[in-house]
């Protein structure tokens, strides 16, 4: 049985380097892991600086001399040095496992995201479906964290998070389904390729809106940060965490911003397709620029909108976003049949 697993369509740029299957797999794993550990630091620094400037502050200025570029590295060193506290009433096994369960799905997402025509680890046939399925796993990590902390605020935060993530997963998947219908493939590389003439944000603006709103809710970022509302429940499910485990949750949040920006770029902004046919600049640059722009947009919203109340938040998902996404799918289907 040599089929099935690890079977990929096309050739990625790593495949040509080595002959052995296992060396290629390990090389790809290392590249993905390094990317997931580095890219969120860039977004984290961007959040520090963008929020600061939007509030007429300077933000970090000292670490690394030049505009505090090394602030996140310094934070990392600080987190490593901190004491690792496990509350005595906590379920220590589940408590320690939770940060990993939250972070690992976001690492697994980057395995299938294409950053160029040949810059990907696996061109999975069911790419976008896989991505949306894997993101739903991190909910379990948050619930584990909230329950194992033996803290009422943590538990309330975890339950809020679970209710919110389940509600917003539906519009997220439905919005992606509209794009999949237009592209005629689930593969992320295929969807990016299908946009060589025009970006799908032009034909699917409603799906783009629904997807971005649902993505921000999935990330529990403001204005959908009810699960970690600091004025009510301290920091939700993450209240009892310190040191490196807490850093894992922060890393997962920024990796999540990069991941959802990358998925939205591939689905709606053409992925690695260049603007104005500028093929001289490689696709990796275009993809990174689009991911950066969407990450900036997500951070911008944090500085703009107040937090939604729990009932407003649920009503918005079930009464506005899901019917909107369903109508969009219906219209896309009708047009697809008529054009054919």
């Amino acid at each position: 049985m040599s089929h099935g697993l690890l079977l990929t369509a096309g050739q990625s740029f790593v495949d040509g380097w080595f002959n052995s299957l296992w060396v290629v797999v390990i090389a790809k794993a290392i590249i993905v892991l390094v990317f997931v550990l580095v890219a969120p630091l860039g977004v984290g620094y961007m959040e520090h600086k963008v929020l600061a400037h939007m509030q007429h502050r300077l933000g970090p200025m000292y670490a690394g001399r030049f505009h505090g570029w090394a602030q996140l590295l310094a934070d990392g060193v600080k987190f490593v040095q901190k004491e690792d506290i496990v509350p005595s009433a906590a379920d220590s096994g589940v408590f320690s496992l939770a940060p990993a369960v939250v972070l690992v799905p976001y690492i697994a997402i980057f395995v299938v995201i294409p950053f160029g025509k040949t810059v990907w680890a696996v061109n999975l046939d069911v790419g976008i479906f896989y991505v949306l399925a894997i993101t739903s796993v991190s909910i379990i990590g948050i619930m584990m964290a909230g329950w194992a902390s033996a803290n009422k605020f943590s538990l309330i935060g975890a339950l809020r998070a679970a209710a919110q993530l389940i509600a917003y997963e539906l519009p997220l998947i439905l919005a992606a389904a509209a794009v999949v219908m237009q592209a005629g493939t689930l593969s992320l590389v295929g969807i990016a390729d299908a946009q060589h003439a025009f970006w799908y944000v032009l034909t699917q603006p409603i799906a783009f809106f629904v997807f971005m709103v649902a993505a921000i809710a999935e990330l529990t970022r403001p204005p959908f940060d009810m699960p970690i509302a600091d004025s009510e429940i301290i920091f939700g499910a993450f209240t009892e965490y310190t040191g490196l485990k807490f850093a894992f949750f922060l890393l997962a949040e920024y990796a999540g911003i990069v991941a959802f920006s990358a998925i939205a770029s591939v689905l709606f902004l053409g992925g690695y397709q260049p603007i104005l046919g500028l093929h001289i600049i490689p696709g990796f640059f275009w993809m990174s620029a689009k991911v950066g722009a969407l990450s900036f947009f997500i951070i911008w919203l944090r500085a703009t909108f107040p937090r939604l109340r729990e009932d407003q938040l649920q009503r918005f998902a079930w009464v506005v976003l899901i019917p909107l996404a369903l109508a969009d799918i219906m219209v896309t289907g009708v047009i697809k049949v008529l054009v054919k």
Partner: protein
Amino acid sequence: MADTVVFWIAAPISVASAIAVVLARRAVHAALFLIANLFTLAVLFLVLGSEFLFVVQIIVYAGAIMVLFLFVIMLLGVDQEVSLREQLQGQRLVAALLGLGLLAEVVVAVRLGVGLHRTPLPDFAAVNKGGNVQALAHVLFNQYFLPFEVTSVLLIVAAIGAMLHGRRRMDEEETIDREQAVL
């Protein structure tokens, strides 16, 4: 080669976590072991070359059903150790007999399906030619179209039924508020 390695990593974890579900004393631990078990099953689907079922297994079981399980367990606060004293007379014996019966049934079913000889399995690569999703859609929407539609109608009816049961009438809500005011 790669498939065999992954199978021998996933299969023992699958069996061990399934046993742990039964042996775990706390409900949340049992639910978490069940998630691990469902995940390894998803990996086994991938090994068999069925990417679509791999993803469906994750999104439906790990992503939706088990989250609701955990949600209910946590909301009700069932985290005390459950007493293992049986309420029903002879429950253990009947359970063991039924378990053995189920095991025998599964073995017979698999043996009848695959055959008693060590014949090679059907060629999945040929079936999946042109993509696993396309192959599945072709079978589902041609050969099994009617059962598919009937199942979807059944699910919709179940969803509407659940919604009707869960809905609270306006006047009922008022009486509840009044009772609380009196108290």
